[in-house]
């Protein structure tokens, strides 16, 4: 990773767990302030324990950059808000938040594609959603209703955990691939995925076929459009559908017409 990794702690034990990130260990409040000023544009801060947190809550903020903070302890209430004054993203154990085991966490943070992996998350029981945190600490909200499969096990949100080094979200017996979640809910990840894995087929037909499969639909399932017409579109025999056809296709797939091609 390119951005600085700064660990705030009074001893080296935790820092050694993150050595793949080549971190700088900051022990005193003065060292923290200097590092904050020097790395104001972008940095990942890791605080293993509560004793290090007071060095951050008393920071004198300056220019607003892209500082991201991962706290491995519990953090509640107003302290979290104080940290948000200086840090763009804050991930900490609070309110049912679960994180990967520390060794897997370090592995994800060191991965070149860490934004495509999850490090933890929490269940929002009121809005029936799962808030997942990516390896770049950015949150992604996924409705619980998405976690289902025909005839498969019933997802149990109370038993939520991240496994497989951030590649799988587990809800009891139910497992969802992280890349499937990102493919569905993050247009940038979808674009990256499309560029990477379907490089040979960037046509409208390829997008239609991928999205239809993703939705579990048959070619017969499009109201007002024959299966033969869908097949011709998917094979590229018709480069672009008429606007009203596209509208019907998008409706059946549950996306906006302009989104079909992003899949």
């Amino acid at each position, binding site marked *: 990773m390119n951005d600085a990794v700064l660990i705030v702690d009074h001893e080296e034990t935790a820092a050694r767990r993150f050595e793949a990130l080549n971190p700088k260990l900051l022990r005193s409040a003065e060292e923290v302030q200097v590092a904050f000023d020097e790395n104001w544009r972008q940095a990942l801060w890791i605080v293993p324990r509560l004793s290090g947190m007071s060095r951050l809550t008393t920071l004198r903020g300056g220019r607003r950059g892209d500082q991201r903070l991962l706290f491995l302890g519990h953090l509640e209430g107003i302290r979290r808000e104080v940290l948000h004054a200086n840090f763009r993203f804050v991930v900490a154990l609070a309110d049912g938040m679960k994180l990967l085991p520390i060794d897997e966490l370090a592995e994800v943070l060191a991965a070149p594609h860490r934004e495509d992996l999850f490090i933890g998350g929490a269940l929002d029981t009121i809005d029936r959603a799962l808030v997942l945190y990516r390896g770049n600490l950015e949150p992604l909200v996924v409705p619980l209703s998405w976690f289902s*499969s025909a005839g*498969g096990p019933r997802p149990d949100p109370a038993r939520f955990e991240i496994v497989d080094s951030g590649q799988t979200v587990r809800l009891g017996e139910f*497992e969802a691939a992280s890349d499937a979640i990102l493919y569905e809910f993050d247009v940038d990840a979808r674009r990256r995925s499309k560029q990477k894995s379907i490089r040979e087929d960037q046509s409208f037909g390829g997008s239609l076929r991928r999205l239809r499969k*993703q939705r*579990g639909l048959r070619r017969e399932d499009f109201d007002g459009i024959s299966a033969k017409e869908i097949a011709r579109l998917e094979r590229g025999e018709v480069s672009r559908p008429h606007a009203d056809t596209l509208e019907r296709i998008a409706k059946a797939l549950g996306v906006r017409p302009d989104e079909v091609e992003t899949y």
Partner: protein
Amino acid sequence: MAFSLPLPAHLAAQRWKVKIRDRERLEPPHVTVLHGTKAWRLDLRRGEFMDSTPSPNEVPTELIDFVLESLPALRARWDEMYPSNPVQGDADDE
């Protein structure tokens, strides 16, 4: 329930896993070989890796052979989990 192919003990000890999860990107039918933060998708129709990165050369030959020997069971399991996108598919898909 997500399917995890039981692997020889020494491969499992090296943290290799082979899975079909309950929600996958569905096209085409595949199993995912997992190792740490890396993943390789293997097409269940063709028995070939789907992606060039990460390099399939990183996957031990022994593991690949084991997965290929297990293809009939993996295909059956995929069809159970994803009946709308069976391994056989329909002729137009090929």
